[in-house]
């Protein structure tokens, strides 16, 4: 090995601790001192200094983004409740919580979990369905359009790169932004206005998703001041894959084929960059621009190659570029790569740049030499570039050549397992939650508050965003994001259902997608936030007709700096909630991802985001005919509220609007809610339910109002008969955000059968649907009567975001 004009040797053997740290910072390696020392030790044993290619390769492979070293590292956790302290050490938080639950549940229909680019569950006898959700926060903060576009492009490639490749059927997106109505003058210098970020992010997802021909069918947008500097952009993709194509295997001697986009200087240091807090001065190269049409061509052609069995393994080039992709595929065999053969966008890239560039739209394949000509011909026929750049060896080494020089030679074992495990302290102080002071409202103020809640950024219509996404492409979206009775009007659907009839010919089955998140709860209690997110995602799916016995979930943590013990402690709590909920609901986690270090500096002041756990749920529906939507259908039908309402206004929309201090964050009662969910499935499947809506942000009054205006109907609700835990005021009953509740519309003909299904559950018949289009909530006991035209409530709901 020698230094050439293209490749430098990096002096590391002689460096002091201080100098090692400096080197890590200067070269954007994002390696800790312990990690730098491990690298130093390794090269001391080899008795030579590393090349720049080698050190960059190690930095990429060991990055937070690729290795998840915080969640898989050692954590010394202390929990404080009053004066009581409990300690526990986690050797691998992920394996001891989320992953452990999945292992213990051991579902036969989980076909591939936590090992590939996405989780896969069984769809039918022939097919599986894969789901993955990713974040692209830092790039979206810098360049909202390019950042979010490459975010969606990247997660689509995860689906293309799972097993031998799945066909994407649907996208999801969840965003957290600052308040878009912030005054321009209140946006700190050097930051983009939240509305500018929002518009850019939405356009990026729109253009990439629409041009890929994948419908964006489910999502959420959450607004909070805490995301002004650091927006969160979650993108998910679900795809279908033949069961016979789920496993990949790389053999020694297989050729390495790079397919799709060319390599440029874009996205260099994206992986290591994601572990750094955002500064006003950022690495320009970290920004990538996507080209959906290139990725669409790759999708079309690679699935043909898959079905012709022309390759044995595939993975996508994501964070870390070729370095990560080839490093992963060749972990067990070794790999030899000729970097000068990689097709470039333009001249002037040095070997390490070629190797770690995160240029978009590239996939890496392992190809048996006998298929060499056929596979390249197949790609080229539709103008897709495909170039062999090396082969998988049997020496268990990663060897990189440029021209005829060897520019890197590292043991695969060291690369993948040489990273020292850090020990991080974590603490969590459980705060006591107390019921707020009584909230008094009369009929008039109640109506005003209802309209304010409907108009709140976190409740209001997101139609402006949703309509820009082609949620109908592929013709399989049979439960849509915006729901109504004819084709006009709109209400917020709980979950989306995809009926993959163009792929799985003759099927009756569908795939349900939903999500749950509520950062507001996390500000008070991250355990409850996580538990709520799991429950909400399931509730949303059940509301359209899903069977929770066939549901699976994904976790996505977006947190602040894990080096802060309090922040890490709140993460440990959330991970524990995931374990508990997974076990209690009997729902496996099948994949997940974390994005840490979400903080931003202005001057010397550090801003950390309110932590968020997004839970995305996917399930299989036996017969899509038995799915329902949320708009009320017919006057004269009865309205039931299933579940019990507790005094739980902590973190609620009402608490935010009325500036209520204190309050208890909704607790999840798994046994109670699971029982209701199982029975709703039974009721929907027996055709007894006309419409169904889950109760979440804003409470019961919001859920019922939404059903009314979405269906262009009226309702008459008797507040006094709603089942509550203890004596609650009208405001508490209507706006409490207790879990496990649904509003259901039932035809009187079916009332008897319906009640039979729920006979041991807590539920109440609370009113009926009317054709007069007035929404009426009445409590005779409290002398309260709220009456408003459903059209006016619709307008309150839909007029907040109209640009």
């Amino acid at each position, binding site marked *: 090995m020698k230094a050439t004009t293209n490749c430098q040797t990096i002096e590391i053997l002689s460096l002091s601790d201080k100098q090692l740290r400096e080197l890590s910072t200067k070269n954007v390696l994002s390696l800790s001192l312990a990690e730098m020392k491990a690298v130093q030790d390794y090269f001391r044993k080899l008795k030579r200094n590393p090349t720049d290619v080698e050190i960059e390769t190690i930095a990429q492979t060991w990055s937070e983004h690729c290795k998840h070293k915080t969640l898989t590292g050692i954590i010394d956790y202390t929990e404080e409740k009053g004066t009581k302290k409990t300690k526990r050490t986690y050797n691998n938080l992920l394996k001891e919580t989320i992953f452990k639950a999945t292992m213990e549940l051991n579902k036969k229909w989980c076909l591939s979990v936590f090992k590939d680019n996405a989780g896969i569950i069984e769809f039918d006898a022939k097919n599986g369905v894969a789901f993955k959700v990713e974040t692209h926060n830092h790039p979206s903060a810098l360049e909202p359009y390019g950042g979010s576009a490459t975010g969606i492009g990247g997660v689509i490639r995860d689906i293309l790169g799972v097993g031998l490749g799945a066909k994407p059927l649907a996208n999801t997106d969840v965003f957290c932004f600052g308040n878009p109505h912030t005054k321009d003058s209140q946006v700190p210098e050097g930051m983009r206005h939240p509305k500018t970020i929002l518009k850019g992010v939405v356009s990026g997802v*729109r253009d990439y998703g*629409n*041009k*890929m*021909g994948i419908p964006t069918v489910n999502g959420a947008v959450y607004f909070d001041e805490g995301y002004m500097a650091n927006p969160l952009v979650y993108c998910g993709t679900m795809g279908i894959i033949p069961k016979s194509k789920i496993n990949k295997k790389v053999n020694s001697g297989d050729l390495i084929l790079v397919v799709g986009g060319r390599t440029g200087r874009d996205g260099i240091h994206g992986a290591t960059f994601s572990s750094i807090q955002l500064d006003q001065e950022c690495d320009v190269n970290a920004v990538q621009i996507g*080209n*959906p*049409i290139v990725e*669409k*061509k790759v999708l*079309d052609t690679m699935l043909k190659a898959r079905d012709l069995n022309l390759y044995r393994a595939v993975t996508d080039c994501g964070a870390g570029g070729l370095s990560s992709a080839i490093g992963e595929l060749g972990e067990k065999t070794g790999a030899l790569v000729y970097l000068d053969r990689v097709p470039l966008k333009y001249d002037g890239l040095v070997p390490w740049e070629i190797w770690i560039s995160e240029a978009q739209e590239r996939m890496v394949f392992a190809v048996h030499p006998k298929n060499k000509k056929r596979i390249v011909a197949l790609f080229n*026929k*539709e*103008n897709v570039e495909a170039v062999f750049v090396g082969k998988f060896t049997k020496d268990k080494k990663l060897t990189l050549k440029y021209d005829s020089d060897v520019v890197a030679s590292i043991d695969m074992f060291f690369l993948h397992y040489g990273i020292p495990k850090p020990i991080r302290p974590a603490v969590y102080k459980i705060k006591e939650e107390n019921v707020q002071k009584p909230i008094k409202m009369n009929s008039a103020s109640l109506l005003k508050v209802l309209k304010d809640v409907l108009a709140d950024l976190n409740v209001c219509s997101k139609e402006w965003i949703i*309509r*820009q*996404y*082609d*949620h*109908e*492409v*592929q*013709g*399989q*979206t*049979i439960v*849509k994001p915006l*729901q*109504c*009775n*004819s*084709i*006009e009007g709109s209400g917020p659907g709980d979950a989306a259902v995809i*009926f993959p*009839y*163009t*792929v799985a010919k003759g099927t009756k089955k569908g795939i349900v997608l939903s999500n749950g998140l509520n950062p507001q709860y996390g500000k008070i209690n991250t355990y409850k936030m996580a538990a709520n997110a799991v429950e909400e995602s399931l509730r949303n799916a059940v509301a359209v007709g899903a069977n929770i016995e066939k549901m699976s979930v994904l976790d996505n943590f977006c947190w602040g700096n894990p080096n802060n013990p309090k922040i890490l402690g709140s993460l440990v709590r959330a991970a524990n909630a995931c374990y508990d909920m997974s076990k209690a609901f009997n729902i496996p986690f099948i994949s997940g991802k974390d994005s840490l270090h979400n903080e931003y500096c202005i001057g010397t002041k550090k801003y950390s985001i309110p932590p968020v756990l997004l839970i995305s749920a996917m399930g299989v529906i036996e017969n*899509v*005919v038995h799915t329902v*939507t949320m708009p009320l259908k017919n006057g004269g039908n009865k309205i039931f509220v299933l579940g019990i309402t507790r005094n739980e206004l902590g973190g609620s929309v009402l608490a935010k609007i009325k500036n209520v201090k204190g309050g208890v964050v909704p607790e999840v009662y798994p046994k109670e809610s699971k029982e209701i969910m199982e029975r709703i499935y039974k009721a929907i499947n027996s055709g007894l339910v006309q419409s169904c809506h889950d109760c979440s942000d804003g409470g019961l009054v919001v859920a019922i109002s939404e059903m009314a205006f979405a269906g262009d109907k009226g309702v008459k609700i008797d507040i006094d008969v709603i089942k509550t835990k203890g004596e609650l005021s009208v405001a508490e009953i209507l706006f409490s955000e207790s879990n496990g509740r649904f509003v259901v519309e039932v035809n009187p003909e079916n009332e008897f059968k319906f009640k039979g299904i729920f006979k041991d559950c807590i539920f109440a018949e609370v009113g009926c649907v009317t054709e007069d289009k007035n929404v009426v909530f009445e409590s005779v006991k409290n002398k309260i009567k709220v009456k408003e035209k459903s059209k006016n409530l619709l307008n309150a709901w839909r007029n907040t975001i109209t640009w």
Partner: protein
Amino acid sequence: MKKVKALILKTAGTNCDYETQTAFELCGAAADVVHINSLVEKKNKIFEYDILVFPGGFSYGDDIASGKILANEIKNKLGDKVKKFSLSGKPVIGICNGFQVLVKMGLLPDPELFEQTSTLYYNDSDKFECRWTYFKIEKKIRNESSCIWTKNLPDVITLPVAHGEGKFISINDKLLEELNKNNQIVFRYSTKDGKTPQYPLTPNGSVEQIAGICNTKGNVFGLMPHPERYVLALQHPSREGFDGKYGWGKIILQNAVDFVK
């Protein structure tokens, strides 16, 4: 009875090929998705088919303008074949991006002239929008138009649209007059009861609410909405359909298949 064969032409960025294929299969046709490169290689292959379909999507990313690059490519590489196919009277349809391609290469409204005389321009709202809306087939059209694609439809139907450039504009008023006179404007955006709609039911600001046109012979048809996305009642927002099972889009495609039979 012979199997009717449909050719669905695809290129980089085509993305409605799969569901269009499935929809034609549902109508009893055999449908092949053929990449433009292989058609350019074997140009006469086009005549092995009975129906020619330009499906929806974002051909070449809709760079420059929607459908423009594909229209340019087809005209320069396959122009005479496509023209011959169209003039032979066999059914030709352009859906959404396909409609944009037909208009921009000039196959519509007059395949004989084969010159661009109209366009589909940026929506008045300046954004891509996906929604369901109503389409009116006027009485005069139903009685007199030679359009083979729109037979057997009621006065008003529903279909989904999804586009950013769908505003129909003709080169001059004379052409518009002719289109009207010859019963070529077969689809107009409409309200539920067949009246002239406002935004958003007319999603793009098209002149005279034009949503779909055909040639005088009635075999070449272009439309902004997506019939292939509404062949099953299940695909409708509230699951409406005919025979309890199908959507209006199926009738449109079935018309062409039956015409060939």
